[in-house]
């Protein structure tokens, strides 16, 4: 088979870990921006960061998404719980050709550290950055930490946009090579003040957001209202909106999330549906697929962000069964044709205990 035929269109022919050819109108050299700008329905997910220094932990956790997602969020101490850093995860993932979305939370680092990290990440091939404010330290496992919040998500977006587009630090000092990144933000249409939320999204776009991922959507009518307002404000033409979805493990979990995790809105109907089910876990997955089916029809929705914390193995099934990819296969790390041939040959030599003589080889070749 020809190597060129085998290759995914969004892969650098010189190696999967290298940035893609720059395209006109594109701000980054990553896969996610290409998928979105082609008008394809994008799927992103979240990697559960390991509490370990073993790179294999990251690769194993990324492997289960292979061939099903267009981007993997590397979370930055989500919930203010300490884990492997998002920069570290991204460094590992880009080496293997994955398209990580590096999250930056303003909670832990000041503007000096963040701008340095942006440059470092871009140098390592990170093409997507998601700007977040971050949870308060009181939510995490180290509530005695100093909350930094030097920037907020909005000024962080603007800082990185200025670094990219104007080639300058916040201070005005020049960069020799600006970071080429696709900028993202988070929105929560499900928390008050509801009438401000679409305007807030507009503000984030003005600050530099090019794609947004929403908080978990369990209330489709509420999301539809938000999208209607966003369309009325003309925002959906300026930003790619990925709706956050995810499976609920059980009715008990859902109730617990509702009362303990601020910002996640779960209507009673959802909990009733889970309670009434025989197998609550399967029903949670089914519910997630149903929500995807509904939100993908809403005009202005460019994709879904599947967050399946501790149920990561379900992501592939959810994406497959919901059919959002419409037959498209996202990039997957595959051995190039020539490498595959060598590997196969090597396996043959090492695995099967045969000693081939030149005479036999010549004979079999004819």
């Amino acid at each position, binding site marked *: 088979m020809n190597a060129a035929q085998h290759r995914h269109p969004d892969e650098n022919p010189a190696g999967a870990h290298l940035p893609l050819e720059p395209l006109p109108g594109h701000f980054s050299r990553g896969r996610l921006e290409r998928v979105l700008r082609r008008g394809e329905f994008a799927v992103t997910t979240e990697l559960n960061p390991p509490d370990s220094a073993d790179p294999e932990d990251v690769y194993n*956790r990324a492997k289960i998404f292979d061939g099903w997602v267009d981007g993997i969020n590397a979370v930055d101490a989500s919930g203010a719980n300490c884990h492997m850093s998002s920069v570290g995860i991204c460094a590992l993932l880009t080496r293997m050709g994955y398209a990580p979305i590096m999250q930056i939370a303003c909670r832990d680092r000041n503007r000096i550290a963040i701008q340095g990290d942006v440059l470092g990440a871009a140098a390592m091939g990170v093409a997507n950055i998601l700007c977040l404010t971050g949870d308060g330290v009181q939510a995490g496992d180290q509530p005695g930490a100093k909350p930094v919040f030097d920037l907020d*998500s909005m*000024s962080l977006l603007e800082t990185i946009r200025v670094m990219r587009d104007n080639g300058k630090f916040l201070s005005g000092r020049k960069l020799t090579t600006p970071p080429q990144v696709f900028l993202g933000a988070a929105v*929560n249409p499900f*928390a*008050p*003040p509801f009438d*401000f939320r679409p305007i807030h999204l*507009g503000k984030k776009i003005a600050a530099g957001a090019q794609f947004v991922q929403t908080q978990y959507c369990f209330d489709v009518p509420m999301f539809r209202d938000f999208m209607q307002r966003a369309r009325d404000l003309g925002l959906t033409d300026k930003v790619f909106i990925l709706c956050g979805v995810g499976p609920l493990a059980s009715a008990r*979990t859902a109730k617990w999330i509702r009362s303990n995790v601020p910002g996640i809105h779960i209507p009673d109907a959802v909990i009733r549906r889970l309670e009434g089910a025989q197998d609550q876990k399967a029903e949670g997955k089914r519910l997630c697929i149903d929500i995807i089916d509904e939100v993908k029809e809403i005009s202005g929705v460019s994709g879904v962000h599947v967050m399946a914390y501790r149920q990561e193995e379900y992501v592939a099934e959810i994406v497959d069964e919901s059919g959002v990819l419409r037959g498209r296969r996202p990039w997957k790390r595959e051995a190039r044709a020539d490498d595959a041939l060598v590997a196969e040959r090597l396996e043959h030599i090492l695995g099967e205990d045969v000693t081939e003589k030149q005479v036999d080889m010549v004979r079999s070749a004819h």
Partner: protein
Amino acid sequence: MADTPIKPVPIGAGIPPAATGTTTQAAAVRKNAPKSDYKPADVSPQRRMQRSWSVRLWSVRHSRLLEWVYARLAETFLALHPLWKAIGYGRVEAPVKFVEKRVKGFMFDCRMCGQCILSSTGMSCPMNCPKQLRNGPCGGVRANGNCEVEPDMPCVWVKAWEGSRNMVKGDAILNVQNPVDQSLRETSAWLRVTAQAAAAREQAKTSTDVGAAA
């Protein structure tokens, strides 16, 4: 050493048991903390420095009135610019700051960031947000409109949005604000705004003069 193969770890291995049922990681940490008789209230240090917020909420409800009052104050300060300049802004700063800190502290729970944006935030001081967000609410606002970090405090930005709707120039809330310049902490925002307005006025005058001369 080098030939020890790195064993592939099965997915899900090494993940601590899920926070099932009723505990969060934070709750577990708190539970395991050493016990003592003195237990400060379970709120952030920022909140402890603060009185009740009834005056602050009154200010937000009367944002339109305060907007008018502030406009008059700014005019007066600008009119007094020659006086400030004669005495010297540096010398006048201490007494002005003394007044400003107490007045704004009483009205808005001012934190003296030195770069006041109350006019752009519906007269709700954003520095009272535990995350000190200056551009809008975070995603953690509770369903009842209270803060994620301080469950009994109304979200500063929910109030800011309400306040801005009462104001004549309330749409200033749509402007993207720069990050806080920490080097301006504990300085007088009133004097800075006055000096800047005076400089702008001067420049406008000279440019029209040049335009008239040309």
